[in-house]
């Protein structure tokens, strides 16, 4: 008897080439949605292009010194650049961040871990509401109510912490309170008030996604609540903290009205943050806009482009970090 061994041929099945014939309505709908989505790209491109086109005149005149020159006198035919304004912008943002990030971490931890369940919803609402209060109103409140109190704090810091360079304020004669308003420090504090709700919202959301089983695991081992926060929530939420901070940084750099109301613009750089006088690109645009001639406007466009590029980079990075640390659903940032 002969046994015929059939060759072990892998039969390649032919997969169906699925064709979806969409109706006209469906095709129109998809095209419309795609077009709507594309407007955001178009808008982004247009902003960059038009600021560049309008700013070219100024860039051409100043060359690279636009980024190093302290003065801002395009209208008088003088020199101009963001060499002083940009560092001031960053300094205000850093002051704001130094306050906003720790407070937001605490507030987010409070909302997710400590607040009773009912209070949690109310607090979330309050944070949302705080984010909706116009920066104009924060600025007014800061100017009229907070600043008169903060100058005392500034003076105290200058008196007692003056050995730290950024708090050292030199004065001829005794230091009076009038040395301290409209400073980088005060502007930074007011901006921080606007950042806290935004930053808290991002962090709350990420902390809220900390895995329950790990939390319960830590508690079941006899850990304290602080232990859970330190060992589970903070490590888990690190991306949220960094992302939230960077997002706030983007906002802080671009904040206009509150800063414009608080500061008195100066164009000479200084090391300390407590004494009167500060600046920011956004405030520069808001304040100089109405009194600028053609070259002046062009210079403002160049400054605006600088700000646009910086915030775009920071925010894309922030969004990348936050989206990596959270899954799927998210509140808006």
């Amino acid at each position: 008897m002969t046994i015929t061994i059939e060759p072990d041929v892998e039969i390649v099945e032919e997969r169906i080439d699925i064709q979806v014939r969409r109706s006209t309505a469906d095709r129109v709908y998809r095209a419309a949605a795609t077009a709507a989505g594309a407007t955001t790209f178009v808008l982004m491109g247009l902003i960059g292009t038009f600021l560049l086109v309008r700013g070219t005149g100024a860039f051409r005149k100043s060359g690279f010194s636009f980024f190093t020159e302290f003065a801002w006198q395009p209208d008088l035919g003088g020199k101009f650049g963001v060499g002083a304004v940009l560092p001031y912008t960053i300094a205000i943002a850093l002051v704001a961040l130094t306050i906003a990030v720790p407070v937001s971490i605490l507030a987010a931890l409070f909302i997710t871990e400590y607040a009773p369940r009912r209070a949690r919803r109310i607090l979330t609402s309050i944070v949302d509401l705080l984010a909706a209060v116009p920066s104009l109103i924060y600025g007014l409140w800061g100017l009229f109510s907070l600043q008169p109190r903060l100058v005392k704090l500034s003076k105290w810091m200058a008196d007692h912490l003056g050995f730290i360079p950024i708090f050292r304020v030199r004065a001829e004669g005794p230091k009076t309170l009038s040395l301290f308003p409209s400073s980088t420090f005060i502007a930074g504090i007011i901006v921080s008030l606007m950042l806290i709700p935004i930053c808290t919202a991002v962090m709350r959301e990420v902390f809220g996604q900390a895995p329950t089983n790990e939390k319960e695991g830590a508690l079941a081992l006899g850990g304290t609540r602080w232990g859970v926060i330190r060992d589970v929530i903070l490590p888990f939420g690190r991306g949220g903290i960094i992302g939230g901070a960077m997002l706030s940084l983007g906002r802080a750099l671009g904040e206009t009205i509150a800063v414009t109301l608080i500061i008195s613009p100066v164009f000479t750089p200084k090391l300390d943050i407590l004494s009167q006088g500060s600046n920011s690109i956004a405030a520069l645009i808001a304040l100089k806009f109405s009194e600028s001639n053609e070259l002046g406007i062009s210079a403002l466009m160049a400054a605006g482009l600088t700000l646009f590029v910086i915030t775009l980079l920071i925010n894309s990075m922030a969004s990348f970090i936050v989206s990596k640390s959270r899954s799927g659903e998210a509140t808006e940032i």
Partner: protein
Amino acid sequence: MTDTELDTELAPATEPERIRIRTLDPDDATAVGGSALASLALTWLIYGRLVPLTGGLGFWVCWYIIFVTAVWAVTRQLSDAIHARDQLARVIIWSGGMAVIAPLLLVVGYTISRGYHALRPSFFVEDQRYVGALSKSTEGGGAHAIIGTLQQVGLALVISVPLGVMSAVYLSEVKGRLARPLRTATDAMSAVPSIVAGLFIYAIWILSFGQSQTGFAGSLALSVLFLPTVTRTSEVVLRLVPGGLREASLALGGGDWRTTSRVVLPTARSGLATAVILGMARVIGETAPLILTIGGAFVVNANPFSGKQDSLPYFVFRLVRFPQESQIDRAWTGALVLLMLVLVLFVIARIIGGRGPDHIGRLRRRRLKKEGLA
């Protein structure tokens, strides 16, 4: 009889008493309360003598530091170091929570206290045409600014809500090849500095297209800020629509467009409305983009497409920088009205957001009756 009725009938009439689980240990509460009082007393004793601080702010800073230290020390005495650290964290984190609530009360309270005495009904109907820098703050009003703000925000809404919702539909329903880059771009754009939006509209609309400053130019600038916000929030809302509903619609033979328009969007209706209104509440207070685009005015201009217009935030921003008290008071009144608008929008958003997708409004109920579907 339905099963739920059965269930309730079987439920026992009297429930056994449940154990109440206390989240706050009485010993801890005593320790915290005691520390608070003791540190208050101590601060009062030493303040101004040993501490190099003055003023009310300093007093409370000093109290807080002593209080926190006392909580830690007392708990450590009563139990152990681990517990003490836990208590310390609890107290500090609670303070963080309070630090978020405090500004809301302070900002709202201060705005009311500064703004209410110049607030008259006439503020809503008169403009600034007969008002000079020396007139009393109760004279004239902000009608021109309110009209301007409503028109500018309304136009911005008309421009960006359809675009934004459609973009969100692209992200969550069509899921095309552009979805991922679009999400990143939307994130990046949602934080474009508001002054840059104004500068951009100035560059393209006024300098390049040769248009003049109008309310419409302002609403274009607001749209630049509004579009990414609407896209982002709407996408979040659309993603909450269960996938099973889309499948059910497709299984009934619904095409993509009808699935989106008849099933997904109606289900997300209240969420979308909330997202739009919250976005409006944020946009309504934007000042910076308007400085460059609307021009500002003192009299009513009800045509957003021609001539300069005013807006509430710009009105406030201009007046508050005058030296006269009356102008500053007028600015605060404007700020109060603005804040009220924001609060009203916020409350509306919360009410709508609280409704489930199965809420049937009066209008819809009437239409359903007419169609024989209710």
